[in-house]
């Protein structure tokens, strides 16, 4: 993985091969878990970074649930390599891994990602089919069992924000739900999207502030300060509903309601107005600055157990 080009976009096969190689090179630290299968029967993989022990508390990071947001999957690849590079040399990361495991799901929506590489670069949803509709796919960030089907999601299968026929209808979502429930000890959950330079915490489906709003706001402030310190990228932060718009059935609303207090979602940078076509030369800077924010959240999680 030292010769892997982190500054370009890669196909699903290349990313999956990268994961295998990373595991082979670092078997003392990294393992690969198949947590489920997609609608089109692609394996859904999570990398587990662990220094050992059973059922240790854990931090979850996922990238690429919206398939066209390529800079997120590419950042996920970079994060994976960063963890193996720094796990001994970086005091902060070492202290995190001394106490907790990290789970990293790089391609959260493999069917959608493959579709963006072969048929439609702008595909965002899953690839599930629906009876009585010619339209395909569900927005996997509207398919969680938290305010499911409420406003801020669409009941129209042709919409980009279609919530699906029922909560967890998408195997890509169900796989994470099952994993989080069966693990039972995940303390931070970070879901990464692009592109509007935001760090958000729950809720998205209701204006009622979360009980931990003040604390999550303070963590966000520190994380954004760290992120901005590298290249000056400007981020806004706050709850989903007050910072962007009402969105029901979202990932981190569900994780928060499962008791995962440190639930956050990122919208990564676009400093050049390219949207989902962010030039590859921005991948590494994006990942680097995001990593600083992730470290703030991870270290805070370790230092503030609950």
């Amino acid at each position, binding site marked *: 993985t030292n010769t892997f080009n982190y500054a370009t976009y890669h196909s699903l096969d290349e990313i999956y091969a990268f994961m295998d190689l990373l595991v082979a090179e670092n078997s003392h630290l990294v393992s690969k878990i198949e947590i489920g299968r997609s609608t089109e029967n692609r394996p859904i993989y999570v990398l587990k970074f662990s220094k050992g022990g059973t059922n240790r508390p854990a931090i979850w990071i996922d990238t690429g649930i919206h398939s066209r947001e390529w800079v997120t999957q590419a950042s996920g690849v970079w994060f994976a390599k960063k963890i193996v590079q720094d796990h001994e040399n970086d005091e902060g990361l070492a202290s995190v891994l001394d106490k907790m495991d990290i789970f990293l799901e790089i391609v959260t929506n493999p069917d959608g990602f493959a579709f963006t590489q072969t048929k439609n670069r702008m595909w965002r949803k899953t690839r599930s089919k629906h009876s009585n509709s010619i339209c395909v796919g569900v927005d996997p960030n509207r398919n969680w069992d938290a305010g499911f089907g409420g406003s801020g999601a669409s009941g129209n299968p042709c919409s*980009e924000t279609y919530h699906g026929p029922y909560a967890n209808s998408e195997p890509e979502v169900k796989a994470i739900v099952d994993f989080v429930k069966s693990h039972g000890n995940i303390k931070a959950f970070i879901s990464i999207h692009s592109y*509007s330079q935001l760090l958000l915490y729950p809720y998205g489906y209701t204006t009622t502030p979360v009980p931990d709003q003040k604390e999550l706001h303070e963590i966000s402030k520190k994380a954004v300060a760290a992120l901005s310190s590298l290249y000056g990228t400007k981020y806004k932060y706050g709850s989903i509903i007050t910072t*962007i718009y009402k969105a029901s059935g979202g990932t981190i609303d569900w994780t928060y309601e499962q008791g995962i207090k440190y639930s956050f979602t990122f919208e990564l940078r676009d400093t050049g107005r390219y949207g989902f076509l962010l030039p590859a030369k921005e991948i590494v800077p994006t990942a680097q600055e995001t990593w600083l924010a992730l470290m703030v959240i991870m270290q805070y999680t370790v230092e503030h157990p609950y």
Partner: protein
Amino acid sequence: TETFVGHQVLRIVPTNDEDLQKVQELQDLEELQLDFWLAPRGVGHPVDVRVPFPSLQPLKAHLESNGISYSIMIEDVQALVDDEQMEMLRERRWLPLS
């Protein structure tokens, strides 16, 4: 493969509640096949929308007749997709071990 020849991405910044309302209404006009990259979220916040070529003229006319200003964020989406594809092919030097 779906192509995006002639598609543009417009950036619209609603400057008042009336603008915002009109931009929000665009989300319901399914015949225009607009793809909102950044959905309307408030006055002063940019809205980025990918517009297929056949919808460009009617949408621009609609915005202009309502006095809503916009800028062209991406002139031709396909040109960027082509660049991206070219770059991926050029950089495909890394081959996984069997």
